[in-house]
């Protein structure tokens, strides 16, 4: 049978839209048994969303350098501290905004590592590695929205953020706006 079947209203009420059912024979009866759905785990190429005092981010590893440069440009800190690990050794650089690009060049691929951390005056960027970040800031909500917009722009995501609280992802090349 390939045609859709319209269910009687009293039966439809006990079902949920999207629920999967398996047809089973039990004795002389034919039953519909709910099927456990597999969780749909997602690994977005890009994610930018507000959290309680900053942003939650997934940045493509190849774009981390651009993203970090952008943070310096938007946050305009007086001092920047970069923490990273090179060949198993912990390193720390304290630089001004003018020296920041050169310092990032020195950090290089270590910025994709989970040991990377950056402090921009009162703002801190924590890394989980491979572009997974949590940014703690003291920015006001509208400033944070502008920062989120700038991150989407630099990552080439075509979306305009209208709200102070937002969650946007790029999944398999498709834009998902959660709020």
């Amino acid at each position, binding site marked *: 049978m390939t045609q859709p079947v319209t269910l009687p209203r009293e039966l439809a009420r006990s079902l949920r839209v999207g629920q999967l059912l398996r047809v089973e024979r039990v004795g002389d009866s034919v039953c519909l048994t709910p099927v456990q759905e597999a969780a749909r*785990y997602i690994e977005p190429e890009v994610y930018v*969303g507000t959290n*309680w*005092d900053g942003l939650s981010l997934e940045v493509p590893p190849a774009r981390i350098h651009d993203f970090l440069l952008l943070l310096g440009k938007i946050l305009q800190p007086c001092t920047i501290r970069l923490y990273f690990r090179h060949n198993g050794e912990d390193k720390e650089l304290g630089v001004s905004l003018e020296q920041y690009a050169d310092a990032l060049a020195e950090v290089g691929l270590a910025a994709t590592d*989970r040991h990377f*951390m950056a402090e921009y005056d009162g703002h801190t960027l924590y890394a*989980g*590695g491979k572009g997974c970040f949590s940014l703690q800031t003291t920015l006001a909500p509208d400033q944070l929205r502008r920062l989120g917009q700038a991150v989407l722009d630099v990552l080439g995501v075509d979306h305009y953020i209208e709200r102070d609280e937002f969650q946007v992802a790029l999944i398999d090349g498709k834009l998902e706006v959660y709020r």
Partner: protein
Amino acid sequence: MKKFVKDVIGDFRVLLDHSYRPYDVSPPHVLKRIVLPMCEDIAVVLEEGTRNDAWQALEGFAAECRKAALKARRDS
């Protein structure tokens, strides 16, 4: 605050942060990006830190918990 204390607080923040994501984060992502780094960083605090460092780490966790809980109440 010592770097390794900041690290472990950062791990905890990243953990809470992912619980607010609007999609199902994959178990391998949670393991590689959060759980294993956190296990490693907690061990460093215990091996190299003082009691005060451990206390600061817990205070850092509590500060993030307070802020995250406030947001959860605001959102509900």
